[in-house]
């Protein structure tokens, strides 16, 4: 069973601060996705990383995939109240064949950005 551990579980910060959340596993993933979820809604895809060591930027968000493709981080610069939400990482397993990309999710980091 592939497990993804996310840390911290909860994070409460002030507007303007920077933060980093982590997603770690002992398993190798073919790709890793980050989602943001608001209460009562489905997860919204933020980014997909595929290559070990890959860094992707989405405005104030920077995503990094570990060299060994076992871990990832999300860094937010100058956080805003609109960034508040549950941040989920999800890994797609390495496949010997086929196209099943069933995702394994972490429990998420619940971020609160206070004005």
């Amino acid at each position: 069973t592939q497990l993804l551990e996310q840390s911290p579980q909860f994070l409460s910060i002030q507007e303007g601060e920077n933060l980093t959340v982590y997603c770690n596993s002992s398993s190798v993933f073919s790709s890793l996705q980050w989602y943001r979820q608001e209460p009562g809604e489905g997860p919204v895809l933020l980014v997909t990383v595929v290559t070990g060591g890959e860094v992707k930027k989405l405005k104030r968000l920077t995503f990094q995939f570990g060299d060994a493709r076992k871990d990832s981080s999300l860094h937010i610069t100058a956080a805003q109240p609109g960034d508040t939400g549950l941040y989920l990482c999800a890994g797609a397993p390495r496949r010997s064949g086929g196209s099943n990309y069933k995702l394994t999710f972490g429990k998420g980091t619940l971020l609160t950005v206070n004005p």
Partner: protein
Amino acid sequence: GAGVSQTPSNKVTEKGKYVELRCDPISGHTALYWYRQSLGQGPEFLIYFQGTGAADDSGLPNDRFFAVRPEGSVSTLKIQRTERGDSAMYLCASSLNGNEQFFGPGTRLTVL
């Protein structure tokens, strides 16, 4: 619509009843996934369809759960003899290339 849609958005039922949850994927997406999310947890995989066939149903918890996708588009998740432990958010996602999955808003199921 442009995104994945799910109906109903909320479903309250009594223990022992039968429920159906519907998912309408993004047009043209051949892959469809069902996940279940309990409070404080990440989504957990239930079943994956490629076209009309269930390619992987290893996540279905028991034989009370069944899903169909008869025409390769809309899918229905069916739960028989519901139990209180089935209460959760049921999420559907669709994908074109498998690598990126787009989720619907979910159906919140409450079993009393």
